[in-house]
């Protein structure tokens, strides 16, 4: 990314560019944006984040056991999963962290470790490659994590919402919306749609249904 303005001299140290939270911040929340390769996860995080997205990683053993046992790290039997994140200060106390996470199979070994307690998820899809998101949707349903689906518009062939729902086997009560991950307003609307969905679930006590596909 290029720097936003030329009014200021370039800041040499990454650490000095950090924007700290206010001293009263005391509650961190998580939302995960999950989707296939190149579907726009990082773009969406960047669009709404108050910080430049940062990248980090977790290590797991081949068995997916994490690295509590450091001998596994030592023995080089481990592999890493990288993800990026951004941050939105919602008010003085509450900070929302937005994670962009890959949908590949090996990533889900780490889901419980990393994203237990997440408010919910956005499944970002590209209609040219809808099948890339099947696995993520299956796993979210299995985990009972509430989610919505956002179609990122890459100018592919126009599909009706109904066609997409059918392709994804998406139940009617799960919101499906269009978005442009490059747009802050559009990405913000995606998050609002997710949280409204969560709010509806939390006030009606509606369970997250598992789809029983025919």
């Amino acid at each position, binding site marked *: 990314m290029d720097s936003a303005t030329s009014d200021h001299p370039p800041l040499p140290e990454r650490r000095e560019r950090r924007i700290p939270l206010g001293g009263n911040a005391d*509650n961190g929340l998580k939302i995960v944006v999950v989707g296939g390769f190149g579907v726009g996860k990082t773009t969406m995080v960047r669009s709404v984040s108050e910080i430049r997205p*940062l990248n*980090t990683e977790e290590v797991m053993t081949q068995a997916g056991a994490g690295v509590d046992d450091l001998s596994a790290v*030592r023995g080089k039997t481990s592999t890493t999963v990288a993800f990026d994140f951004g941050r939105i200060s919602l008010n003085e106390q*509450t900070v929302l962290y937005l994670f962009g996470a890959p949908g590949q199979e090996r990533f889900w070994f780490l889901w419980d470790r*990393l994203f237990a307690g997440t408010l919910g998820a956005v499944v970002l899809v590209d209609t040219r490659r809808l099948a890339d998101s099947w696995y993520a949707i299956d796993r979210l349903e299995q985990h009972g*994590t509430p989610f919505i689906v956002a179609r990122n518009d890459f100018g592919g062939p126009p599909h009706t919402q109904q066609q997409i729902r059918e392709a994804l086997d998406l139940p009617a009560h799960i919101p499906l919306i269009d978005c442009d991950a490059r747009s*802050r307003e559009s990405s913000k609307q995606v998050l609002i749609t997710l949280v409204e969905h*969560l709010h509806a679930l939390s006030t009606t006590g509606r369970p997250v249904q598992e789809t029983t596909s025919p």
Partner: protein
Amino acid sequence: MSRPGRDEDPDRLYTLTGGRSRAGSAAAAFDLVTLVVSESEPTAGMQSEHATILRLCQYPTAVVEIAAELRLPISIVKILLCDLLDQGRITARHPRTAPATPPGARTAIAATGTGGPVPHAAPLPDPHLLEQVLVGLRNL
């Protein structure tokens, strides 16, 4: 050249944490978004990663941000944080998303609903918290 910290030399990670295994327990208490606050200044002779954490956390800083800054895997950072917590050099503000009242309604429906029991279903967050989130998002 890939980002430093990628494909980290396992021996370096091992040395950083003194080869300790902090299975479950203390390290597991740190969430990705637990906000860490320093309660003391770095001291001379302190392990450099510990000192860096204390400097970073003069303001509340999430575990995941610390990991990104240190360019270390999350698990390793949690072990370093446990050290500092044990020494009383940091405090931790853990996330609070659970409903204010027990999720009885949802559990009951989940158990009797047409979809059958929901495996792994976490309790949904407190509606009031979600309302605050919505206000914050709409004000963006």
